[in-house]
């Protein structure tokens, strides 16, 4: 299923220093192509959560230099089975690396091990909180198939920090989020579900 370019136009997003992604750093002397690629990918935003890069999310699993003008091979693990942004993410990765002169780029999919929010970086978690989304707790054994609880524990309000929150729905505006509200500051907020 190929979606046409421009179906999801990139909306202008007001950047905020608290959560803005780093700009691509200048090249360092002696930097390998793979190191350079990771630096570039650290600035490629996830289309649904622009406060996180594809590296912060743990989507990029491997970057290999194919050498001799062969370009780069990037391995990506999808977040959700039905994530509608998968194709868009792959394109954004290719475009960013090719724009930086690292092409040609081939992006391949690796399903196992399945993506988990435990792969999200600490920096990413803090940026997520600043963006207004409560970051996921650790899955640990939950990922192994233990029952999940009706009310997740320990989700603090990303605005006021209160632990007095309640879940409104396990499903939110995107597959990865649940809807919550804070009982202290009364603000609704989203929670990135541990999975």
């Amino acid at each position: 299923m190929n979606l046409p370019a421009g179906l999801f136009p990139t909306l202008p997003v007001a950047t905020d220093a608290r959560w803005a992604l780093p700009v691509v750093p200048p090249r360092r002397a002696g930097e390998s192509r793979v190191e350079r690629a990771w630096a570039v990918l650290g600035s490629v935003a996830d289309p649904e959560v622009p406060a996180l890069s594809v590296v912060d999310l743990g989507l990029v699993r491997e970057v290999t230099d194919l050498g001799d003008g062969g370009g780069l091979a990037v391995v990506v693990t999808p977040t959700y089975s039905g994530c509608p942004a998968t194709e868009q993410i792959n394109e954004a990765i290719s475009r960013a690396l090719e724009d930086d002169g690292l092409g040609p780029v081939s992006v391949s999919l690796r399903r196992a091990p399945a993506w988990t929010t435990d792969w999200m970086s600490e920096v990413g978690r803090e940026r997520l909180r600043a963006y207004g989304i409560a970051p996921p707790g650790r899955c640990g054994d939950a990922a192994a198939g233990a029952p999940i609880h009706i009310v997740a524990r320990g989700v603090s309000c990303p605005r006021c920090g209160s632990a007095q929150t309640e879940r409104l729905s396990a499903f939110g505006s995107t597959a990865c989020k649940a809807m919550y509200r804070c009982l202290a500051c009364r603000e609704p907020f989203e929670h990135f579900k541990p999975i």
Partner: protein
Amino acid sequence: MSTPSITSPQDARSRYLLRVADTCLIHAQRQSEWCGHGPILEEDIALTNMSLDLIGQARALLTHVGQGATPPLDEDQLAFLRDERDYLNMTLVEQPGRKGGRDFADAVMRNLLIGAWLQLMWQRLQASTDAEVAAIAGKAVKEARYHVEHAADWVVRLGDGTDESARRMREALDRLWPYTHELFDDDDADAAAVTSGLGPARSALQADWQATVKTTLADAQLALPKDTAFRSTGSRGVHSENLGYMLAEMQHLQRAFPGGRW
């Protein structure tokens, strides 16, 4: 209708996988009928989110089945260009809700009965000797847990709710229960899957499924219906009258505009 149907792979392995893929696909299609019609906004979003997960799972499995077919088929050909008899979904998921599909009791009850089955199926498929199937299952099982939790939450809330909600949940259960026998009704594809290590026989899921469903129904104060002699056969390709209408809607664009793209 100008695009001819494809020849669907008929080997036992493909039929075993298509049964799971089609159950996800048709369940997603039924559930997505709630898009824009949910009783509350949160539920509208939840039902469509779950449908999206199910379509993703179906896509992955259909792609995998298609790659193994001769000649190879893609996910769209398998999803949209088969004849009704070649769809192998469980009959349960094609059942429409009452009140023109707008009875929420039917939606949550169907979601519990099939969700608990899919969750167990994905759990077992994680150990498949087919590495791609195991990888798809490893992702899907995490999503399935959320679906079952959500369905069970509603079944208990409404079953143990008001007189009106309890009555409607009882009716939904009585109406859908006869279709659950099929979820555990082994055939040659199950036997072949067990031999090859592709996946479990359907009957092997029955004890755990009953434990989950019985616990939830007991919490919901809903009595288990009596078994009847009725047997549905969608997973063998012989469907209730409801699937044809769904396929007419699902296939219309691909049939009318061959290879049509956005």
